[in-house]
Structures are given as structure tokens and as C-alpha cells.
């Protein structure tokens, strides 16, 4: 298994370099650069723009900029933010805990919703529970996160006044209860949307599994129905779903961009939105590389988990 993981990780390295080159080209191709934001100030003159361009190293050929970025990045030097002059690594590291807090909680809640919804809907296929969860899931998948988020704010923060509408903590707060209160609405948005999709996958996978001969055999051996479903069928059906969960988790871990923005959550997603608006190339590059690495690693991890559940994968 260790050799399997090491091989997969090594195979990913050239892929990451290729991604970095493509991403570098893409963000430089987007109209406007880090200096565009200065242009709306009439007091900023062409001399100022040229001076700032040189100071940021943007006057060099693109390949030189990429090469010096790559060489430094590989050695752990992520450079300085074009926007606030702080080290990029510091700017990213301070945003990781909020994102992990939000995304971690959302994934746990989403899984907790997915398992009963997916299993019961499959077992009672076509009955009222299945039809209801299907309707709810379709609604959940279709809900735009920003709209759903604002709706929750209007009901629970403005209407009832029960929960804070956004932010991570209250000034002077920051205890567990304060965190939970701030997490409630953004977690609801993320968990409902994720659970809606995941429960559909699980339902499909379970329906397929329940029709397999080994399930019939388990019933025939007199194993209680509940145990057949949860111990035998679910373990088999959950493999492909786990792979989807892992990849979605990687995407979420790199920042739930829309949800973080609507709830003013100080995570990686908000940082990405801000860096994109300001064309903060160094922060954008580092964020996109962290995201790409996370997705690659989670994919490897998904393979590993799948291999744990189904040893034939590791042997392959």
C-alpha cells in the first residue's frame, strides 16, 4: 500500500508543474493586472504605474517571471503579496483554520445527512421517503449557494434574530458556543448542497448493490435485514461514493468561494475572491497550487480509501 501511495504521489509531480504553467498563463491572460486597480485614481500617473511595474518585476518577459516564480516556489519561497506586501505563505496559513473549521464541520454534517437519506431511499425505493428525499435533493442541488445563504440570513438573523448573519466570531467572543452559532448558517448551506448530491450517488450505488447475488445470499443465510443492509450492502456501495466525497472535500478545502463570500467567512475562499479581484498574482498562484496539490493528494487518498474497502484496487 505504501509503494502504491508513493508511486501515485510521484506520478503527480509533473502534473503539478504542468498545472502551474497553465495557471500562470491563464491568470496573466486575464485582462487587467495588479496595477489596473490603481488606474481609477486620477493622481496615479504613468510614471507611477511604470515605477510600480518595475518594483513588482512585471516589466520582465513572461517566461522569466514564471521561471523565477517556479524556482522560488519549489524552494518554499512563495514571495510577497502584490496587494499588501506581506509574505504570501503567511497570508495563506492564517486563512486555513477558518476554512478547515467550516469545511470540516460541513462535511461531517453532510455525511450524517447523506447516509440515512441515501440508504433509506434505496431500501424504500419509490415509497414516500424516497420521493420526498429526491425532491429535496433536486432542490438542494439546484439551490444557488448565494441565494440560499441570503435566505437563511433573512430568516434566522434578521427575522428571528437567533443567529449571527455572518462572520466567524463576535468581538470579545470566540468560545465554542460563539463558533457554533457563527457556523450554523454557512454549514447549513454547504452541508445541504453537498448532502443533496452525495445522497443521490449513495442511493444509486445502494440500489445497484441490493440487486447483487451476495445480498440475496446474505438474506438467504438468515442474517437480519438491517445487518445485511448496513454491514454488507452499504460497505460495498459506499466505495464509489467515498471517492466523490474525497474529491468534493478537496475542492471545498480550497475554499468554499461563494459561501465564504456570502457569510464573510475569513477563509481561503474569501482570500481567493479578493486576490482575483486585485489580480494579486503571487497569492493567486500560491492558492491555486495549494488547491491543485490538495486535489491531487485527496485523489490519491480516495484511491487509498477505496483500496482499503476493496483490496482488488491496491492489487491492480
Amino acid at each position, binding site marked *: *500500500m505504501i509503494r502504491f501511495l508513493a508511486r501515485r504521489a510521484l506520478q503527480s509531480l509533473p502534473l503539478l508543474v504542468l498545472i502551474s504553467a497553465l495557471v500562470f498563463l491563464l491568470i496573466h491572460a486575464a*485582462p*487587467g*493586472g495588479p496595477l*489596473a*486597480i490603481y*488606474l481609477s*485614481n*486620477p*493622481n*496615479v*500617473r*504613468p510614471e*507611477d504605474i511604470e515605477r*510600480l511595474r518595475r518594483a513588482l518585476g512585471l516589466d520582465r518577459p513572461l517566461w522569466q517571471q514564471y521561471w523565477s516564480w517556479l524556482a522560488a516556489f519549489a524552494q518554499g519561497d512563495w514571495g*510577497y503579496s502584490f496587494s499588501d*506586501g*506581506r509574505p504570501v505563505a503567511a497570508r495563506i496559513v492564517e486563512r486555513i483554520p477558518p476554512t478547515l473549521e467550516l469545511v470540516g464541520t460541513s462535511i*461531517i*454534517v453532510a455525511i*450524517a445527512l447523506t*447516509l*440515512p437519506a441515501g440508504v433509506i431511499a434505496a431500501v424504500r425505493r419509490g415509497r414516500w421517503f424516497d420521493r420526498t428525499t429526491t425532491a429535496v435533493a433536486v432542490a438542494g442541488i439546484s439551490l444557488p449557494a*448565494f441565494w440560499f445563504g*441570503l435566505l437563511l*440570513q*433573512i430568516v434566522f*438573523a*434578521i427575522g428571528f*434574530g*437567533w*443567529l*449571527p*448573519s*455572518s*462572520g466567524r466570531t*463576535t*468581538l470579545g467572543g470566540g468560545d*465554542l*458556543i460563539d463558533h*457554533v*452559532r457563527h457556523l*450554523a448558517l454557512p454549514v447549513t448551506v454547504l452541508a445541504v448542497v453537498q448532502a443533496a448530491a452525495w445522497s443521490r450517488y449513495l442511493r444509486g450505488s445502494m440500489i445497484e448493490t441490493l440487486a447483487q447475488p451476495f445480498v440475496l445470499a446474505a438474506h438467504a443465510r438468515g442474517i437480519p435485514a438491517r445487518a445485511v443492509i*448496513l*454491514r454488507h450492502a*452499504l*460497505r460495498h456501495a459506499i466505495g464509489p461514493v467515498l471517492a466523490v466525497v474525497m474529491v468534493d472535500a478537496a475542492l471545498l478545502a480550497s475554499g468554499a468561494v461563494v459561501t465564504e463570500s*456570502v457569510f*464573510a467567512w*475569513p*477563509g481561503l475562499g*474569501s482570500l481567493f*475572491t*479578493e486576490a482575483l479581484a*486585485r489580480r494579486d498574482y503571487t497569492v493567486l498562484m500560491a492558492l491555486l497550487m495549494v488547491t491543485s496539490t490538495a486535489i491531487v493528494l485527496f485523489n490519491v487518498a480516495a484511491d487509498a480509501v477505496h*483500496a*482499503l*474497502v476493496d*483490496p482488488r484496487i*491496491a492489487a491492480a
Partner: protein
Amino acid sequence: MTLRCLTPLTPLRWYQAGAALVVVCLVVTATTCVRRSAATPPTNDLLIVGYDREPDTLNRFSTHILEDIQTCVVEGLTTTDEQMKVIPLLAIEVPTIENGGVRLRTDGGMDVTWKLRPGVTWQDGKPLTSADVKFTADAINGPNYNPESTDGFDRIGSVDTPDALTAIVHYKEIYAPYDIQFIRGMLPKHVLDGRDIDRAQDYNRAPLGTGPYRVADWKAGEYILLERVAHYWRGDEYPKIRRLMFKFIANTNTRINQLKSGEVHVVALVPWDKYREIAGMSSIVVHKTAGNAYEHVTLNERQFPPFADVRVRRALTHALDRELLTKTILDGLAPVAHGPVQPVSWAYTNRITRYPFDPARARTLLDEAGWKMGPNGIRQRDGRPLAFTLITQAGFAIRENMAQAIERQLRDVGVDVTVQLHDGTAISAIWFEGRFDAMLHWWQMPSDPELTTFFAADRTPPAGRNINYYQDEALTRLLYASDRTVDREERTRLLQRAQQIVADAAPEIPLYSITRLDAIPSTLKHFKGNPTNTGIFWNVHEWEMK
């Protein structure tokens, strides 16, 4: 590495553990929800401001966004009040020719003498002196610092400091807006001398100033907390409010929701389309300030040559019912503008040509210009249709609505407009490169009414902001003359003449004058507002909750 690994915790138990956790969370949330309210009322202990973005830096000379937060910490020699009048702050008076503070030299330069207010100290107790004024000019002009702009400073030859409270600034040429040269404050020499200011994070994240507040905390992505200083130079009774918190809430809807739920108390620059949502709230007052910015349609005559014909430009202006547009889309909150200088400016004149809504006149002018109505309802000349693209910023509901209305109204006189939306950063690059036909946008005008950069013939990008690419040599001479005099009467005369020429030539279509809407608690006293980039916090030391 087999299935046995999973047996200690079967899927059933995973599920049970997860469900238990969710139940615990829900119970904790539910039980605490009913006991705690998310809202905190504004008090003299804490006032919370919903701010639309996190600042890049708190160094006023480096930032490229509004300086609201910095204004509370770092003070300049002068500031602008609610009527955009330049008033002394750390200087005892604004230097003028009359009071002997400004002396014109025979070599074409000028000397400005700043007398500093005695007894002012930096927040660390060190006295503010003329050496700080000199250090600021030298640092900005020096090779080791990259401020946002060196405009004005680059015209300073040297600064003399005959005594600790007198700084004489020697300009190489006449510089009309000298009175706001140090409006952004001074850099403290004793903290920054000999250092790389771009990397001086201690200063850039928590600048040392002379203002009523200091930076107590900056939580990335969340907020900046300011705390009152113990001994403010105006007296220990100021400021009245102990802490100011700036919460970063980029999403406009969320910001307004926080205002409604009482989680923030102040929202500056409320979008007009949100006015009705909050106007009825008893806890909130929406303060209106006549602004110094104007929304307009830039007509790029280099990219779209038909705009070079004054008859076409006048026809387009006549074709728009601007009264109707402001009444409907802006809810009547902003008045129609007729030129680049707004009524709040001392240089404003209303004795200029105006273009009332008159579609018949517009049609006649277009006919005279040779643009005849085609069979498809679009005018054409020499087989080419009168059709252009209007670009504007995406995600700005009012602009999008306004662009659609313009498209519709111009269609009525046979002009085909296609609206294109771009994000804010992209649009800056597009206009700077002149790659557009027409653009709907605004200029936030400096408090000094300089028009040269917007209309002088040689100030097309990259040399300036003349993105109409309008060329008028007489106007250009007039504008440069207005920059080279510090005689207010003469300057007013020249700038008013320039406004008349601009209005006659109609190089752009002025739409409306920006009215600032600031939502504040109804219990907040001494709030005055401000039409300039100085922002609403210029008199924050007086603010008090009653």
C-alpha cells in the same frame, strides 16, 4: 491492510457517531440561540462599521483604496470638511498668498510655509515636528519607497525646517493643489528613517499617527479594531467613542443584512437600490451628502470616429431622458449632472449649455450629420450603421440597469447600442488601453477641481485620463493656465470658462451627480459626512452616541 482495519468502527457506528455529533451541535445551537441575540446596540464603548473590503495596507501613501480607517489614525496638515472646504488640521492655518504662507518666486517656482500646531505628539509620545514633514517628502521622492502616487511631491525641490514647527516646501513650479499636498499625513521619521517602508509591516499594518485612534487588532479577513488613544491633542475628552470596529463584508447584500439585524451599525456608501430596504428602519438614519463624483458616458472618438462629430455627441445627449433615469433607477436620490465639476466644488458654475431631453432635436442633429434612418430602424451613413458598444462594470445593478435604459432610449432615435459587462479590474485595463467605443462609469473627482488630466489634448492614456480622446487646443491651454495659478479668483474664472467649453462640445454625456448615502445609527450625534476620498471619518473624534 484488509477489511479488518474497518471493523472496530463499522459504517453503522460511523453513522451513529456522526448523527450524535449533529444532534449535539443542533441542541447547543438551539439552546444558546434563544438566549443570545446576534445584535449588539451601538454604544460609546463600541461602534461597528460594515466595510466593503479589507484594506491592503494602512499606510495612507501606499494604499489604493479609500482611507476611512487610516483617517482615524493618521492625520494630515489639512483635511476637507463636509462641504469639501480645505481646513487646517495639524497645521495652524492653510497657507495662502494673503496670509503670507505662499510666496511665488521669480524663477517660476513657489514656496509654501507650513506652521505646525504646537503640542501635537505622535501616539508614542514623541513630538510631531517639521522634520517629519521633510522626511515624508524625501521618502516619497526617494528611490527606496514605492507609494501609490508621487503626484505633487515630484514637483518639490526641497523642504527646509528653520525650526521644529515650521516647514518650508520649495516647489520647482507653481502647483495649484499645494493645500492638499500633506492631506494624507506624515510618515514618522523616528520610526521609518533608514528603513524599507514597503516592507515595514509593523508600520504598514498598524501605523503610528497623531489621530484619535490607534490600531488595536487586525484579524485577517475579519476586522480591524481601533481603540481610542489616552491623550489626543484636542483634549482627553476626545474621542467620545472608545472602540471602532471595521468588519470586512464584501457582499453588499450581506452587509445590508448585518445592518438590518443590528450586527453592524454603520454602512458607508449604501447603494441607491438598497435605500428603500433600510430607509424605514427606526434605528437607522440614511445620511445624504452631495458628492464630488459624476456618472457619465465616455465617448471614445479615437475608437469610434462618428463621436468626433459634435452634432452626434449633442444628439446622443439630447436623446437621453436623464430626469426619468434618475427618478426611476436611482429613486430620485441623485440629481442630473451637466458637467464634470459638481455643485459641491468652489469652481462650479451652472452657466453652461444644457441638453434637455429632446428626441426630435436629437433626430434633426443626426440627420444633419448625415446619419439617415435605415430600413431596420438604425441610422446609417455611407452604408455603415450608427452602432457602438457600451461597456460597464458587471455586478453593479444600478449600472447594468442604467446601461439597458440608455440602450433603449438611444434606439428610439435610431442608434444601435450593445451593452457589454466586464469585471472591475478588466474594465480598468480596457479603458486605459482605449479599447472601447463608449463606457458608463464615474470619476471620483479630487477635492481640487483640476480638469487637465480629463480633458487636455495631450493627456490621453497613458499620460492622463482623457479617455474621450477629445482634442481641443484652446481648452488645453486654458486648463494648463488654471494649473499654474494659485490665485483662487483667477483659477475660478479659468475653470468656469473650461466648463463652458466642455459643455458646448459635449465630449461625454454627464448623467448624474453622485449622492453619498451613509447609513448611521439614529442615536449618533455630530456625524457630518464628506464628499471626498477623505471619507466620513474625518471628524470621528466628535462622534457620540446619545
